[in-house]
C-alpha cells in the first residue's frame, strides 16, 4: 500500500512540475504587453518600462521561472496586475467560494447521479428508468450555463423561492472565518440563520453546475449496473436466496461503481474550471471567474497562480479516487504494487 501511495505521489509531483513549466510559458505566449495592458493606453513608455522592471518581466525567462517557482512553493505567486493585490490573497479570497460551490455540486452530482443510475438500472425499462434517462439526456445535452439561466429565471425570478445571486443576503454579516465555507463556518459559530441563508444561496448554482456531470454519472452507473445484473454471479446470488436490495448494492453495484468513481473524480475537479459561467451568472465571487478574467487581461501571475492551484487539486482528487478505487477493487492495488 505504501508503495502504491508513493508511486501516486511521485507521479502527481511530476504532473505539477510539468504543468508549472507549461503554464509559465503559455501565459507568456499570449499576445500583448501585460504592463501596457495594466497601465492603459495613455501611460507613457517610461511608466510601462518602470512597471515591467518592477514585475521582473524584463529578466530572462529562466530567471523569471526560478523566481516564480521559489515563490510558488511558499504560496507566493507575486502581485496581480489586474487587482493590484497579491495573487495568493486573491486566490485565498476566491478559492473557498469556489470550493464550497464545487463541494455542494459534487455532493449533488454523486448522490443524485449514482442514485438515479441505481434506480434506473433496478427498474430497467419502466417509467422511472425512462424518466431518469430523459433527464440524463437533457443534462448532457444542455450546457451548465443554460441550466443556470433557466433555473434562475424560473425559481429565483418568477417564483422567487430562492435568492438570485451572491453567497449571502446583504443584510447578513459573513460568519467568522474558519474554513471560508459559509455554510460550515456558520454552523461552527452556531449561526443557524446564516447557515440556512448561505445554503439557500448555494442551491441554484451548485445544482446548475452539477447537472451535466450528474447526467453522465447516472448514465454510466445505469449501463454498468445493467451489465452486472446479467452476470452469472448475480444470478447465483439470487439463486442463493439473497434479498433484492442485497443483490443490488452488494453484487451489482460494487463492480459497476469502479468506472463511475474514476469519472466522478475527474468530474469533480473539472467543476473547478467549469464553474466560470455559473459563477458569472450567479455573481458568485469565486476563483474560476477570477482565473478567466486573468487570462483575458493577460494577468500573468494570476493566470499561473490559478492554474497551479487547480492542477494541485486535480492531482489531489485523482490520488484520493485512485486510493478509494484500490480499496474497492484489490486487483488494481495488487497490480500497482
Amino acid at each position, binding site marked *: 500500500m505504501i508503495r502504491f501511495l508513493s508511486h501516486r505521489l511521485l507521479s502527481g509531483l511530476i504532473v505539477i512540475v510539468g504543468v508549472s513549466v507549461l503554464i509559465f510559458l503559455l501565459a507568456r505566449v499570449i499576445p500583448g504587453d501585460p504592463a501596457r495592458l495594466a497601465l492603459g493606453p495613455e501611460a507613457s513608455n517610461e511608466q510601462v518600462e518602470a512597471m515591467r522592471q518592477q514585475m521582473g518581466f524584463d529578466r530572462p525567462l529562466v530567471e523569471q521561472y526560478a523566481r516564480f517557482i521559489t515563490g510558488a512553493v511558499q504560496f507566493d505567486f507575486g502581485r496581480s496586475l489586474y*487587482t493590484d493585490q497579491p495573487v495568493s490573497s486573491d486566490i485565498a479570497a476566491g478559492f473557498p467560494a469556489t470550493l464550497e460551490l464545487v463541494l455542494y455540486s459534487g455532493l449533488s452530482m454523486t448522490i443524485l447521479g449514482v442514485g438515479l443510475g441505481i434506480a434506473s438500472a433496478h427498474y430497467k425499462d419502466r417509467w422511472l428508468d425512462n424518466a431518469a434517462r430523459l433527464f440524463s439526456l437533457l443534462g448532457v445535452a444542455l450546457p451548465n450555463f443554460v441550466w443556470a439561466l433557466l433555473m434562475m429565471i424560473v425559481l429565483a425570478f418568477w417564483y422567487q423561492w430562492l435568492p438570485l445571486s451572491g453567497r449571502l443576503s446583504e443584510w447578513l454579516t459573513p460568519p467568522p472565518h474558519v474554513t471560508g465555507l459559509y455554510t460550515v463556518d456558520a454552523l461552527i459559530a452556531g449561526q443557524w440563520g446564516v447557515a440556512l441563508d448561505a445554503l439557500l444561496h448555494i442551491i441554484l448554482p451548485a445544482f446548475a453546475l452539477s447537472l451535466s456531470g450528474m447526467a453522465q454519472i447516472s448514465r454510466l452507473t445505469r449501463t454498468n449496473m445493467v451489465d452486472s445484473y446479467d452476470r452469472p454471479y448475480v444470478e447465483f446470488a439470487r439463486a442463493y436466496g439473497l434479498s433484492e436490495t442485497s443483490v443490488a448494492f452488494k453484487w451489482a453495484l460494487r463492480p459497476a461503481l469502479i468506472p463511475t468513481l474514476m469519472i466522478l473524480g475527474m468530474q469533480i475537479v473539472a467543476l473547478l474550471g467549469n464553474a466560470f459561467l455559473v459563477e458569472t451568472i450567479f455573481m458568485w465571487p469565486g476563483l474560476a471567474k477570477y482565473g478567466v478574467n486573468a487570462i483575458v487581461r493577460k494577468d500573468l501571475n494570476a493566470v499561473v497562480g490559478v492554474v497551479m492551484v487547480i492542477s494541485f487539486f486535480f492531482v489531489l482528487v485523482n490520488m484520493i479516487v485512485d486510493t478509494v478505487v484500490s480499496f474497492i477493487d484489490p486487483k488494481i492495488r495488487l497490480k500497482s504494487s
Partner: protein
Amino acid sequence: MSDINLSRRQLLGTTAAFGLVSGFGISAAPALAQQKRVLRLADGNIGQADPHKPVDFPGSILMFNLYDFLVRPLPGGELQPSLAESWTISDDGKTYTFKLRDGVKFHDGTPLTADDVVFSANRMITMKRGYAYLFSDIGKVEAAAPNTVVFTLKRPFAPFLAALVRLAVVNKALVTANKKDGTFGEFGDYGEAFLGSADAGSGPYKIVSHNPQVETVMEINKDYFGGFAENAPETIRSKFGVEAVAVRQLMPRREIDLTRLPLPPEIVAALSKSPGISVGPDMKPGIFHFKLNTQKAPLDDVNVRKAIALAFDYDQLYGLLEVAGQKQGLPVRGPIPAGVIGYDADVPLIKRDVAAAKAALAASKYAGQDLSLDLVWFKSVALQEKFALLLQANLAELGIKVNINSAPWPQIVEMATKPESSPHICSVATSLSTTDVDSMLWGEYHSSAAGTYLSMHWLHTPEIDAMLEKTRTVTDQHEREKIYKELAGTIREQYPSVYLYQPIDLAAYQNYLRVPGLVDPKQSVPIMAGNYRYDRMSMTA
C-alpha cells in the same frame, strides 16, 4: 428605499424568509428597520481603491466619491474650485499657486493641509501609475504655507488645471503611518498595500469595506464641506463583476438601483419596459472610429482613405445605434467630440456619397487594382461586428474586399505597437481622460505617443506635432480653441479614421433614484465617471 417598494409576492416571500431566518435567532432585516437610503450600483470588472492607480470606470467612481481634488469638473466641463479656494497662474504659464480652503478635514478628522497636496502629487509622480503621465511636466511642488501650494512646471502646460481633476489628495499622516517595506526609499511602499483596501480621503463618502472583486461599501461623510443633494444616498454598495444577464434579473426585483454596464439591446429594451425602471443617456466625451493605418498600402494614399470614409453608410449606422427609442451615439464632425474645446458645429457632417468615393478611388495611385483590406474588431463588443459587416458591404460597391477578423483586447494592444502589425482598419474608441481635449488628442496624434491603440492610424506629421505642442503653451482659451479647430481641419483632410459616432452609454436606473447627468444632458459632466458622484444624486420613496 429599494426595500420599501415591494410587490405583494415579494412582500410575502420576503416576510416568509425573514420569519424563517429570524426563527433561527438572528436579526434578519436591519435594512428594513433602519430604512437607510442604500444605493446599489452594478459595475463590471473590479474596483481599485487606490486613487493614484486606476484609469478605468469603476476606479474613477471610487476616486471621485472617496477623495477630493483641488478642482472638480462642473456639468459642461468648466472647472470649479474644490479644495482650492482660488489660484493664480504666472505670466509664463509655469507656476500655479493654489490657496486651500480652510477647515477641510479627512475622514479620520485630520485637517487637510498643503503638505497633503505635496505628498499626493509626489506619490503619483514617483509611483508612475494611473494618470501619472498627466503630471510628468511638474518640476517641483512645494507647500509655501499651510494653506498654499505652488506647482512649478518644467515647461508651460495649459491643460494642467484640467489634469488636476485626477489628482486625488490623500491623507499624508495616515498613509505614512501605514506604509510597509517597499521600493520607494523612505516612503517604503508609499502606502500601496494600505490604500488598496482602505481610504485616506476627504471626499463625500468613506469606505466601510472593500473587496476589489466583489463589492465596496461606502457610507456618507456628513462632515463633507461641499454639501449633498437632498436625500442623497447614505450607503453605497458598488457591486463588481456583475454581468448584464444578472442585471436583467436583479433590477426588476429592486436589488440593483443603478448600472453603468454596457447592456445588450435586448436587455435595454426589456428594462425599459419594466415598471419603475428608466434608461438614460450617459454622454461620453469621445469618439468611436475605424482607424485607418496610413502607413500600410493601399491606405498610404489619402484618396483611398477618403473613398472609404465617403462610401460608409452613416445613416444605417445610426439606425444600428438606436435601442428602445434611445440613441447610443451622436453623429460626429471630425476628431473632436461635441462639448469640448475645439469642436466646430459649423463643420458639415460627412455623408455617404458613393459617386464621390469612386472618384476618390479613381484618383488614387491604386486605381484599377484589386484591393483587399484587413479589418479587426474587438471581440467582446458584438455591435462592432455589425459595423464591420456594414463597412464590408459598402466597400464591396467600390470593388474593395474586406477581410473581417475579431481579436481579444491583449492582441489588439500588441498589434498597435508597430505600423506593420497594425491591421488596415481597426475599430477603436477614444475618449478624454480629463476635461481638456489634449488628454485625448495628444495620445492619438502626437508622434511621441505612438504605439498604442489610440494611434493605430499611424498619422504623425511635424505639422500636427507642432500644433499639439502649441496648444500646451497657450493659456488663452480662445486662442487654444482656434488652434484646435485648425488642427481638427488638418487631421480631417488626412482621413486617418472613419469617424463613426460619439458614444452614449445607456445607464439603467430605478425611478426613485435621480441621477442629474442621466436625466438632463445639460447636467452631464464630460469626464469618465463624472455623472457618478453620489453626493449629487437623490433617492425618494
